[in-house]
C-alpha cells in the first residue's frame, strides 16, 4: 500500500475521485493547520511571479495575470498582496474549496507549494 510517495499507509485510493484526493494533498497544504511545513518561503514574489500560474502552456495568453475580479479572495499566507493567490482556474482548481464564503471562511484559505 505504500508504493508511491503520496500514498499513505493504511489507506489506498481506488477510484478516480480518491486518487484525485491523493494528488491534491500533495500540492495543497492547509495554512491554518498546525502541522504545516513552516520552512517554505512565505510572502511576496519569492515563489509567486505575478501570473506565472495561470498558463503553463506555451500558447497565448502566456503568463497572464490574475484577474482583478478575484482580488477579494487573494489573501494567501501573511501577505495581503492581491496577486498572491494561486490561480484556481488552471493549476489549483481546488484552492478555494474550503473558502466558499469569504467573510466566514477566510481562515481556511490555503497556500500552495509548486513541486
Amino acid at each position, binding site marked *: *500500500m505504500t508504493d*508511491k510517495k503520496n500514498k*499513505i*499507509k*493504511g*489507506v*489506498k*485510493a*481506488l*477510484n*478516480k*475521485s*480518491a*486518487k*484525485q*484526493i*491523493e*494528488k491534491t*494533498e500533495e500540492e495543497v497544504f*492547509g495554512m*491554518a*493547520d*498546525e*502541522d504545516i511545513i513552516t520552512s517554505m518561503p512565505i510572502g511576496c514574489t519569492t515563489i509567486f511571479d505575478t501570473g506565472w500560474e495561470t498558463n503553463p502552456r506555451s500558447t497565448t495568453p502566456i503568463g497572464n495575470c490574475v484577474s482583478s475580479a478575484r482580488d477579494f479572495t487573494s489573501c494567501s499566507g501573511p501577505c495581503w498582496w492581491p496577486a498572491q493567490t494561486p490561480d484556481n482556474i488552471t493549476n489549483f482548481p481546488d484552492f478555494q474549496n*474550503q473558502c*466558499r464564503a469569504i467573510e466566514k*471562511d477566510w*481562515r*481556511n484559505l490555503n497556500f500552495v507549494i509548486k513541486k
Partner: protein
Amino acid sequence: MITYKQADHIIFKESDHIFIFLVSESAIFEIEPKIEKTIKLFNKSEQSNKKEILKKIKDAGIKNYQEIADTLIKRRILTPLIEKKNISCVYNKIPLKTLVFNITDRCNLSCLYCYHNKDNKIEKTDSMTFATAEKAVDFLFDNSDANKKVTIVFFGGEPVINFDLITFITGYAQKKAKKLQKKAEFAITTNGTLLTEKVIDFFYQNKIGVTVSIDGPQEIHDKFRQFADGGSSYKAILPKIKNLINKFQTKGGKPVVARVTVAKNAAHLPQTLEHLLKLGFAEAGFGPVTTDNPAYQLNTDEMKIMLNKFKELSDKFLRYADEDKFYGFTNIIDLLVLLHQGEVKNYPCGAGLGLFAVSAEEKLYLCQRLIGNKAFCMGNLSDGFDTEAVKKFRKKAELNAKPECGLCEVRYICAGGCYHEALIREKKLTKANLHYCEWIKEWIKYGLKIYGKLILKNPDYLNKLSMLRGHSPVTGHII
C-alpha cells in the same frame, strides 16, 4: 484552529477487505482495520479540533496516533467543518453537447405503456422539415463553443418513418463538422420495424449508434409493444434486428444495444437478458416504465423483484468479469463506471445542461421526454435559449434545492433521479423521485459491493469498462 467532523461515508467489506465510500466526494478507498477502528471512535454529530482528535485516538490505545490522525484528515475522512457546496452551474453558459432531434411524433406501433400515447399534455405535430433540421444542426454547432465533439440523437415517435430527414441531417452535420474541424456523432433509438437493408447500410456507413427498444422474448415483448391493431411487433422486428446485428458484427459497426422497458412484471429479467444477448445485442439495459397507470406500473413488490433480479444479473456479470469476459448487463456496467470515475453529481442527468431536445416546431425542450410540454420549453431555434427559463430550471433542479434528498448517502450519485419520472409520479419535475429512494439506495450499495469484489479480483477490468464508456483509465497519475 480548524474544527473537523467525520465525513458522511459508507463502510463495506468484501472477503476480509474493508472499503470506505466518501459520500460527498464519491471517493472509494481501501482501508486497514486500524483505520476503520479509528473512524468508529468518532460519531457523525461530533466536532473536534486536531488536539481533541489526537487525544481521542491516543486514549483508545491506537499506535501511531499522529500518523493516523493525519491520514484521516488528508484523505478527507475527517473533514473541516465547512458546508460542502459543489460549484453551481446555474448562471454559467454550458456548451451544447447533445441535441435530440424529434424527427417525428408519428409511430407505427401503439405500445400500451408509451408516454407519448397517453399524455394529453403533449401536442402532436407534423414531422420535422428539412429547413428546421438544418437550423437545428446550425444551432447545435453554434452553441457547442469549445466542444470538439457534438452528438445528434434521432428520436421520435419512430424516427425511421422519416428516414429521408435522417439522411439529410447526417450529411449536413458531417459537412458542417468538417468545415468547423469538429466531430459529429450520431445515435438513434428505434423500434426496429423499419430496418430495411438500405437503412441498415446507412447506419453502418455513418457509424450511427443503434439502440433497439425491445422488451424480451415474444410473449413478454408483445404484451405491451403492439401494432395499433394489437398485432405482434416481435415477429415483425425479429428478422430485421437479426440482419442489423449480423451486418454490424461482420463489418465491425458500433455495438448494437437493446433497451428494455420493464412493465408490470420484472421476474423475466434474467431470461430476457439471455434472450437478447443470444440474439447478438452487445448489451441490454432495463428501465421501469414511466407511467401513472397502475396497469403497467411496477408496484412495490414488483420493484423488489426487479432489484433482486438486478442483483442476480450483477453476480453473473461479476463471474464473467473475474475471468476477464464480458456480460452485457448495461445497468451494472453504467453504475460501476460511475463509481470508478468518482462522479459527484449535482444534477441527475445532462438535461438542461449540455443536452436539449428540439421539436418539429423549432422549440427547445429539456429532454426528449418533455417535448411538447410547454412548461418545459427552454427557447427556440430563432431566438436561442430562453436564458431565464434555463436558469430557473437549473436553480430548482440542483441537488442543493432538493431538501428531500437531505443527507441521503447516495445523493451525489442519484441527485433525485429522472425529471420526467418525477413529473409523472411526484407531480413535480424538480422533485426527487421519493417513490424509488430505497430502491436506488440499495442498488447503489450493491454496486459498491460488486465494485469491491471486482477490484480485488480483476482491478484492471474497471478501467476497461471506463474506456468502453469513453473515459480514460484511472491510474495513479491523474492530470
